[in-house]
């Protein structure tokens, strides 16, 4: 079964005719051409596909693309400026060496961005609660925590 859909991703509307079983992760990567969102386990566990739906971090691999209509989808491509300048969280990741291969990184950034904006000063356990939903094989996570705490401290 195919349907015409209209998806708003990073403020741009993408109109496509798709099979209704297409996952949002595949729409983002193959229809919208935004390959910053990565696909790992494809069943909601690893977190690599995490994007924001109306500002909330969600797994794009457990959403059908057609379900994202009438919502705002935001992906990692929205973080850097139009001139490619990294945002504060990305710079903090860089400074804290919070990425190596980079495969899990976009998902982490999309989960962590709303956390930075939350008002009380973050504690270690607040960050761990959020990154518990992400698998990283490279960093051991400590540098990710430091990047987030550092970003809130400096920002």
């Amino acid at each position, binding site marked *: *079964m195919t349907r015409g859909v209209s998806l708003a991703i990073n403020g741009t509307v993408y109109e496509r005719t798709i099979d209704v079983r297409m*996952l949002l992760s595949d729409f983002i990567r193959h229809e919208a051409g935004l390959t910053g969102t990565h696909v790992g386990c494809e069943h909601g566990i690893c977190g690599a596909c995490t994007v924001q*739906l109306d500002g909330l971090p969600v797994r794009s691999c*457990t959403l059908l693309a057609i379900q994202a209509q009438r919502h705002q989808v935001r992906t990692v491509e929205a973080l850097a400026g139009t001139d490619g300048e990294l945002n504060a969280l990305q710079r903090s990741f860089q400074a804290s060496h919070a990425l190596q291969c980079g495969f899990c990184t976009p998902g982490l950034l999309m989960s962590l961005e709303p956390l930075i904006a939350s008002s009380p000063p973050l504690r270690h356990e607040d960050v761990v609660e959020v990154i518990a939903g992400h698998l990283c094989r490279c960093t051991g996570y400590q540098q990710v925590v430091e990047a987030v705490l550092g970003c809130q401290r400096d920002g």
Partner: protein
Amino acid sequence: MKPPPFEYYEAGSIEEALTLLAESGEDAKVLAGGQSLIPLMTFRLVRPEVIVDINRLDELARIEDADDGALRVGALVRQAEAERSDAIARRAPLLRQALHHVAHVQIRNRGTVGGSVAHADPAAELPSAILSADATLVARSLRGERSINADDFFTSHYATALADDELLVALEIPASPPRTGTAFEEYARRRGDYAVSGAAVSITLDADGDCTRARVTLLASAEVPLRARAAEAALIGRAVDEEAARDAAAQAIAEDTGDGTFGGSDYRRDVTEAICARAIRVAGVHAAGRAQ
């Protein structure tokens, strides 16, 4: 892998959803949060011919008062919202305690309270929590609406008393008696993993501090959330101290869970006993705290 082909319909009203379910019967699956259903389809463990997306049905996403003083939680309430809800914290604390253990925050942003209950995974947190909370499930079809006690709701692995044409619309959680404390304990290899074992407990004490009512439900201990009735009986009439908690947990293992439950694993049996005792003890302490 990718989901197999299906027909997709987005219900614009409850009536429309119920009509689709009545027409499609066992060929249809309801899509709410999709955090269980979509991976099942991606793994091709289920192949529904029809998907009925209910995410537009805002009237099912409310937390409000039921007529009889119970708290009515709409089936479509997102787990993350339920976790933040003041009403649930005050009036259905066991639900909130259980929600902290459900997967990860990213899953809870989409997953729904009703979806987890209707999915009826015996290792999941919410089915056991609502059982110990004496909840009632409200189901609706074109034939009308009915209430189902949580005790009668879970029939087998991933199976409930819902008919093919029925939609779970709400959970109703009755007010707890005074001096009631609750606790939810779970053991998983990592936080957010599927539970190896867990217990949802509600304890009510009288003015002397003796237990008058106990609900002990074990996750991952049977093909359904398991009410440990021998454990509950062992608590009645006594103070819920360390010894009482251990005795009750031992009863749970001896009487309520079968040999086949743990797959011959002494480890899982030991963990279940310890988790059960801990949850009973913590609930007892909270209940005693409420007396002040």
